């Protein structure tokens, strides 16, 4: 046996991993060989040095975070992972929403309310909202009254109707979705047409995608068409209502809002819709924008004028329009960042500055989603960690006490990035 083998046996001897026979051999060599004994001592010293290193402890208990993240991962719907560890998914997801925070306790009822609200929204006069802010004088007034300014991020850029100000995050991130259309920016007219035919209405006019250089450029002709289509779609959705009256799904400006978490799981939906009522005090301080900016979440604020009748609008003053406007935010955020937003709003809820917090699942219509997936940009690597992937999220803030509003010029929702397997 050469010296290397003898040393290796000694190492295993220190670890007490030798057979009785080998152990006896090593002990015999130790008794005979001074150099071998010295090596033995050194190995013991090494062990002592390593084991004397102070032990590190995590600063906090990870249990809640881990469970929440795992649930979110499943909620985002990696197909290979959905069936494991969380059977049955409905139970665990429901438990997740109902555990811990007050907002989640009311997830199901809130979602039902959200669905009902959306149905109501679809039936309001949506054309008015566009007209209202298309009026430049009204827009100027709104900006002035609210101490806002036009986005100055691009020289010569004139915000389109409904577009008010780029948020505190300053420059939008490249490709951040915030068009007013309910369709993907990169959806071709043919794709849109096919989708609109699918929901029962073919638009008389389809505009091409807005300025490709401006990811926030709204497009207002299509929402009107889309909203019209939604009116047609609503009865269909109502017909699919469950016996307890909770609709299984609704359509929202070209996107499908899942009200059934189980179904959302199957369809790989994600939490990407946040809506709540806010007090004026909340809006004065607007902690939401602080959270968005503080977490480097690119966002675009847009106005949601109320759904008044034309006669009503005619008698409203400019300042009234501004005061009554609700706000929407088109964001691009990772699931972790979405969680941060929700936590902030939940805290505000406990301070009674936020109420009726609703967290929704929304995904593009199936056919459009499938086509959009094919058109996935090449620079979005498949191995991108799903936890780090930014996804479109829409936040609606309705002023408390305000009458029901028209559906916002919904920012376009890209399909969720396909979560890559690690």
């Amino acid at each position: 046996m050469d010296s290397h083998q003898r040393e290796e046996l000694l190492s295993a001897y220190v670890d007490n991993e030798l057979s009785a026979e080998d152990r006896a051999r090593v002990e015999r060599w130790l008794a005979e060989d001074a150099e071998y004994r010295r090596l033995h001592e050194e190995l013991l010293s090494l062990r002592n040095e390593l084991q004397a290193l102070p032990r590190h402890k995590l600063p906090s208990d990870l249990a809640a975070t881990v469970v929440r993240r795992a649930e979110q991962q499943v909620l985002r719907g990696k197909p290979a992972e959905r069936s494991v560890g969380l059977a049955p998914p409905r139970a665990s997801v429901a438990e997740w929403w109902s555990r811990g925070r007050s907002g989640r306790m009311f997830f199901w009822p809130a979602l039902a309310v959200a669905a009902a609200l959306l149905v109501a929204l679809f039936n309001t006069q949506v054309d008015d909202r566009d007209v209202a802010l298309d009026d430049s004088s009204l827009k100027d007034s709104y900006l002035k009254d609210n101490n806002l300014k036009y986005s100055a991020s691009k020289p010569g850029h004139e915000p389109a109707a409904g577009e008010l100000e780029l948020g505190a995050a300053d420059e939008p991130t490249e490709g951040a979705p915030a068009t007013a259309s309910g369709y993907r920016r990169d959806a071709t007219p043919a794709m849109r047409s096919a989708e609109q035919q699918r929901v029962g209405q073919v638009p008389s006019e389809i505009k091409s995608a807005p300025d490709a250089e401006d990811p926030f450029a709204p497009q207002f002709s299509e929402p009107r068409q889309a909203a019209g289509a939604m009116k047609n779609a609503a009865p269909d959705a109502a017909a699919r209502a469950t016996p307890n009256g909770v609709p299984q799904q609704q359509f929202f400006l070209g996107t499908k809002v899942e009200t059934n978490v189980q179904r959302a799981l199957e369809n790989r939906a994600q939490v990407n819709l946040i809506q709540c009522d806010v007090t004026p005090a909340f809006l004065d301080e607007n902690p939401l924008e602080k959270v968005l900016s503080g977490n480097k979440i690119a966002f675009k604020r847009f106005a949601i004028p109320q759904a008044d009748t034309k006669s009503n609008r005619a008698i409203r003053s400019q300042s009234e329009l501004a005061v009554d406007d609700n706000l929407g935010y088109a964001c691009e955020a990772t699931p972790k960042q979405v969680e941060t937003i929700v936590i902030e709003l939940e805290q505000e809820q406990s301070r009674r500055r936020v109420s009726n917090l609703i967290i929704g699942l929304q995904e593009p219509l199936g056919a459009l989603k499938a086509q959009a997936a094919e058109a996935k940009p090449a620079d979005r690597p498949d191995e991108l960690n799903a936890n780090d992937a930014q996804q479109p999220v829409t936040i609606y803030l309705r002023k408390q006490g305000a009458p029901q509003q028209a559906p916002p010029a919904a920012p376009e929702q890209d399909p969720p990035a396909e979560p890559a397997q690690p």
Partner: protein
Amino acid sequence: MKDDVQLIGEALDGDSAAFGQLVTRYQDRLYNTVVHVVGSCDTAQDVVQDAFVQAFVKLETFERASAFYTWLYRIAVNLAISRRRREKPMASVEQVREAMGHEPLDAADPPEARLEQRERACQVRQALAALSEEHRTILTLREMDDCSYEQIAEILNLPVGTIRSRLHRARMHLREQLKGVIQEYRT
């Protein structure tokens, strides 16, 4: 207290809180090991969290022939290694010290002893950081976490014979790195 198998069964039945108990049970032990593998407290926190999430999501694939902890370790070590490969190796004492933070030392010791202890720990950590990834990982599993050869073989998916020889080589390299410290210890 429920054992791992019971908690895993409950988690598979949809009780997320049961998995939370497993996280609480093993998080510090796992973290202490991963810190030494990746050489950074911040990275280790991320790795441990990711490992638990992955374990939860893939819990149904866990074959109960092995211990849950061994299986969890395997996930964490794989994540730690791939993470470490993506990041630059740390070379200087200061870099190692900064990444690892200050060690929790015994406040009862006199100041000189604490200083010496800190310096010593830093030297050992630097020597560990200078080892190859496979040597550092195997030494950490054996010395910090007291894993048996069989457990290490399972975690690293290697034969026990390979574990024995690799561990020996790792020790020889570390011995070279820490010659001065070892001699000081012996005297």
